[in-house]
């Protein structure tokens, strides 16, 4: 059954100059959408992908990546709203391009976060005045 899965990949320094992810298409019959890519010459590489394909192929593709010493994490774990720090101002709502940060109840005007929708673009992070949104890659 075709599903999609959002993952955060961290490439060790030793691997950043090697083509790795293309194999997900070639050998594991997956397609992917690159949501974010950050390869620094002196540092580890970072990629946020949305993988699309059959469940079994996604699993095998992720196993392949792990065998290449690539650290694989599901995306949802990485954007965290610190509700203690949040002042419920709503500044983030108009910054979020996908509606992951939103106000549903317009009487209470409380801000809510749907991690499923989040694409980790980080556009919400700096506009948040109490800096309550933490990006943990």
């Amino acid at each position, binding site marked *: 059954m075709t599903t999609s899965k959002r993952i955060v990949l961290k490439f060790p320094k030793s691997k950043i100059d090697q083509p790795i992810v293309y194999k997900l298409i070639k050998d594991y019959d997956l397609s992917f959408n690159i949501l974010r890519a950050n390869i620094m010459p002196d540092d580890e590489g970072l990629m946020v992908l949305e993988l699309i394909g059959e469940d079994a192929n996604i699993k095998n593709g992720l196993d392949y990546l792990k065998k290449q010493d690539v650290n694989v994490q599901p995306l949802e774990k990485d954007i965290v709203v610190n509700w203690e720090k949040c*002042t*419920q*101002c*709503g*500044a*983030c*709502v*108009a*910054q979020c391009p996908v509606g992951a940060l939103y*106000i549903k109840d*317009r009487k*209470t*005007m*409380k801000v809510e976060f749907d991690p499923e929708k989040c694409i980790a673009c980080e556009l919400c992070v*700096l*506009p948040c*005045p*109490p*800096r309550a949104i933490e990006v943990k890659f």
Partner: protein
Amino acid sequence: MVKTLQEINEKIKKGQAVIVTKEELLDLIEKKGIERVAKEVDVVTTATFGPMCSSSAYINTGHTRPKVKLGGGKATLNGVPVYTGFAAVDITIGATAMPDDDPRNAVHPGEFKYGGGHVIEELVAGKDVALEATAYGTDCYPRKELKTWINLKDVNEAVLFNPRNAYQNYNVAVNLSDRTLYTYLGVLKPNLGNANYCSAGQLSPLLNDPFYKTIGVGTKIFLGGGIGYVAWHGTQHNPGGLRGENGVPKRPLGTLAVIGDLKQMSSKWLKGVSFVGYGTTLSVGIGIPIPILSEETLKYAAVKDADIYAAIVDYSDAYPNGKTDIVGEVNYAQLKSGEIEIKGKKVPTSGMSSYSKAQEISEILKSWIKKGDFTLTDPVAPLPSADSGYKLRPLNERPIK
């Protein structure tokens, strides 16, 4: 029908007063009508929670042995410069002050991670804060250097003093240019990408008393989680500006200077905040009770979001260049819906002031008054009102050659 403040306070002390939050008041008026509610309700609580840059705290640290004269010297709290233009150990920390080595907008937009507002929050939260100072030394104050941790509970006076808070309405910021703007009203996306507003609207204290008939110098308020008082009219107070037919300001008009003992406040209601590309500041929670003295007072306090209009201002050109043209007007019901229409385009809105926190404050203030020990004060002096001729002026430059 007229009630006196004294009568209302007697009822409060006996636990018999009818106190409601502004939201509850609106429900009651809808069910029972103005006349009945004016008789039955004694106090309505209003509130706001948002960034208020003209905020500060002054502290007397206590004397050291041997003594040091911070006055006229240099001092920092957690690296943030404090004002030392007072006597030996009196200092003031301002909300927007930042460490000297903060890059600010050297690489635009700067992050502005830490400033005076954060120091104030940390002090109130009970954290130790580093006081570092150099002094020029005198016979009576010989010491030239001081490096010590201080804590709010150990200092003498620690007073929150905010020269301008609780703006009576504010602008709605938009961006008509094609590059992102970083302002005190948040990040403005290009080409009418979003519209940011900053007001508690129908909950906002001064919007419920548009001509300052009940709020004045000496009014007792909820300030930062503790008790405070209105000290004066705030800076940029502009009572004579544009109002709608119901007297409600259509532009930013009145402001309040407020004061209170920092030691009884809470870091839940005084928060250091950072505005990317703009600076640091302090978000302050304020709650003000309004006595329902007459039907007239109630009519003013019955104002709804849909009755309060604000100007949509372009922050790419009109605002920075001091031009008075506006893009349009919109009311707070429209703004709070999440989307407004400007020049035929659907524009998402974001508030910078927290309506839900304001609701919380109005509930807390209601509970304080219900307990019976928070009575309302009669102002000792009025704030300049619309007929006073008090006017906001620009700075007409006279360049120094």
